[in-house]
């Protein structure tokens, strides 16, 4: 055992003495993970602008206030849309970007220009006699204009919230009118009932308590909670498959042959090399976890995280052995060592969450890439506060991958 550990630590120290190892195993992975984390946390959902144009009458103002209230709701910490009141520019924040309104030919032209340039994702126009028409029992049409290219899904969402506002605002008017008709009441009766209704609506009797299934209010598969383990896994694969290059180089330099000629059993040499590479990979993952912790990733159950890291690294090392068994030259080893991680990473969801890909890509990813299983486990632990028991199936499948890679590697690998 001591000999095995000697070989392992010697190999680890030799690799760590090279500047290239530090760059490829620690510096670049951290940089890539941070960049992808920044990108994915800022682009998944963005708050959209919805412009509203109206005549400034009381019901129109109430419509804007209610829609603003609906738009302010947050989905996993991101506001879906913000209402920009073009008729009362002073009531808007800087997000609305209404700077050019004063210089515009007209508010209508300004709104059209915003739609054309896609600065706003929708524009609602209320008629100038909105309040008067409603109070007189007339039907009012309001228009939601959406620029081309805005996804139907977003339109459905805005439409849904606008309808909710209409149900409340229009509903009160319709109800007061219906009661007035039912009791043959006069306009004064209508106004009293309507005022009473508005007063009751002030304290909306029903409240929807909203909760999401995520920890820390972040969308699963985004931000550093996804990029750190994902990119970490990819670079662990790079480090592990570099084992093939290491064997090829040692063979070419005859250092491996010299080692074989010593009284150390071949199995010990192989075990030492594998443990050495396993330790380097573990170090890479450890640095990634440390950096993730520093930038605020809530990892969840520490035992679960440690188990996924160890099981995945074991699997990656076994894959390194399998790669070494296939590669005959240093060039082949370098090519395979680059190709395998570069293909397994996106297929396994290291660059983006597999949830956004078609079903067959998700199945393919889980069949081909162990990263898919480790990422699933990380997602459960980081975003859904899962316990160790819930990631046991993922760990077992990682073990299965390890067994397959290791079995193949041991069967085909030759030290000579």
């Amino acid at each position, binding site marked *: 055992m001591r000999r095995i550990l000697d070989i392992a630590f010697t190999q680890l120290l030799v690799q760590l003495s090279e500047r290239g190892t530090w*760059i490829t195993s620690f510096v670049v992975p951290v940089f890539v993970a941070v*960049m992808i984390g*920044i990108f994915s946390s800022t682009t998944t959902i963005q708050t959209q602008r919805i412009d509203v144009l109206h005549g400034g009458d009381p019901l129109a103002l109430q419509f804007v206030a209610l829609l603003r209230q609906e738009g302010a709701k947050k989905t996993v910490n991101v506001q879906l849309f913000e209402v920009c009141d073009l008729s009362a520019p002073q009531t808007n924040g800087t997000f609305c970007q209404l700077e050019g309104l004063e210089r515009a030919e007209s508010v209508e032209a300004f709104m059209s220009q915003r739609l054309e340039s896609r600065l706003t994702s929708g524009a609602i126009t209320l008629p100038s006699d909105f309040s008067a028409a409603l109070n007189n029992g007339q039907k009012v049409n309001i228009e939601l204009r959406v620029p081309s290219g805005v996804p139907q899904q977003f339109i459905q*969402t805005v*439409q849904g919230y606008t309808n*909710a506002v209409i149900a409340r605002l229009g509903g009160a008017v319709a109800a007061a009118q*219906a*009661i007035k008709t039912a009791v043959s009441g006069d306009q004064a009766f209508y106004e009293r009932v309507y005022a009473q*209704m508005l007063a009751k609506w002030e304290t909306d009797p029903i409240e929807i308590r909203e909760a999401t299934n995520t920890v820390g209010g972040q969308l699963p598969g985004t931000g550093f909670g996804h990029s750190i383990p994902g990119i970490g896994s990819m670079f662990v694969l790079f480090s592990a498959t570099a084992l093939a290059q290491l064997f090829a180089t040692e063979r070419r330099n005859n250092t491996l042959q010299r080692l074989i000629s010593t009284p150390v059993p071949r199995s010990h040499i192989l075990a030492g090399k594998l443990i050495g590479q396993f330790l380097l990979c573990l170090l890479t993952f450890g640095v990634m976890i440390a950096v993730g912790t520093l930038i605020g990733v809530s990892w969840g159950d520490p035992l679960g995280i440690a188990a996924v890291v160890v099981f995945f690294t074991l699997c990656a090392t076994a894959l390194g052995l399998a790669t070494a068994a296939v590669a005959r030259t240093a060039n082949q080893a370098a090519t395979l060592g680059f190709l395998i991680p570069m293909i397994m990473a996106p297929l396994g969801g290291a660059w983006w969450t597999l949830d956004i890909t078609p079903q067959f890509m998700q199945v393919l990813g889980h069949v081909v890439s162990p990263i898919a299983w480790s990422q699933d486990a990380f997602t459960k632990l980081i975003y859904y506060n899962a316990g160790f028991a819930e990631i046991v199936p993922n760990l077992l499948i990682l073990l299965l991958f390890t067994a397959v890679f290791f079995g193949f590697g041991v069967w085909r690998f030759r030290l000579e």
Partner: protein
Amino acid sequence: MDIGKVLLIIRLNVVRWFTDPTGLAFLLLAPFILTVIFGFAFSGAVNDVPLKDIPVVVVNQDRGAQFSNFGAQLEAFFTQPPDESLAKLIKAESLEDAAEARERVQRGKAAAAIIIPEDFSERLNAFSPTFGEQKITLEFYSDAASPISAPVVNAILREFLNRFTNVNIALSAAVAQNPLLLARAAEIAERVANAELPIALSVTQGAQARRVLFEPLQVFAPSMSVFFLGFAVAVGIVQIIMEKENGTLQRMLVSPTTRSTILAGLMGATYINGVLQLILLIIATGALGALMGSQSPVWGTDVPALLLVVLVVAAAFMGVGTLIVSLAKNRVQAQALSSAILVVFGVLGGAFFATGDASAPLGPVSYISPTFWGSNAFVQLTGGTFPALHIVVLLGIGIVTFGIGLRLFSQRVEV
């Protein structure tokens, strides 16, 4: 400089590259496979398909009140939708247990769970003197992984509840005005419930601009090709260092061939390999796009401009590759350094992201990446815009980096 010998060296090296299966796998197969993965992965991610069959679970714990069970009405609204459009949009299921409903959401089996409390009808009694004083709380438990579907369900729930609440508020207000109306409560409630809303919403979507649909291959084929072009060029230049380390460069210099001729031949071969790699990838991914049903050609239709961009992009990377490799002390360092820098350029240039358009993925930081300028030039060209600025920038990058790199590199391969 002997042009004949330069061309001979170029020919020999190009043939050697393109007959090496390992090299081909690295330089052609890898970007092609990654483009395929990107193409399939994002083929349905950014699309214009309306939502449908959103999975929802409803738990009705409402005990009901004397005359009605409002919870049952709310449950029926989702499980047996009153109109076809809602039936298409929502696929709701009733559950008995709130914990099971939450678990469905947690496992991603439902976009949202609506949990109706047991005193829902009781509290919603419009004739109770305490009506409206205490909030009636419904639980809406949504899946954070459904950032679009869950809000849509929330909006529909809100709309239904507003209509529902409105009837009760109307009854409460009517009775407050005239207590005798209590006897006609059922009739009034029915009238209010059936009253047509006086506001109608119409949606119009502009058609003034060309429809912008995301074609994954039009973004990822260029970004992957340009990303791997960097590696191709770096590998080519590292090969020159290897020639020196293996002694073949020295043997060539023993022959009556000048140093500049050899260097020009080897550098020229690297450039030609880069150009050929790009052209082959353009053909392969273009064919792939046609097979995958892309609505427009992956690389656009302006072939002369496309060739010009290929030549310029390859020239830029030739310069970048030369400079990177010239900074390294030996082959191993050159390989590590080029891999690291090119991956960084790839990240900054958006090779790993799904931006869905030609925008800089990381804002102004992306501008320092030649991968961004290279892939973006192709994306612009595909969109019908001649990338003049990109060409100028790429040529500038190429000339400056090649100039500095060649000077340093010439000193390095001094034999």
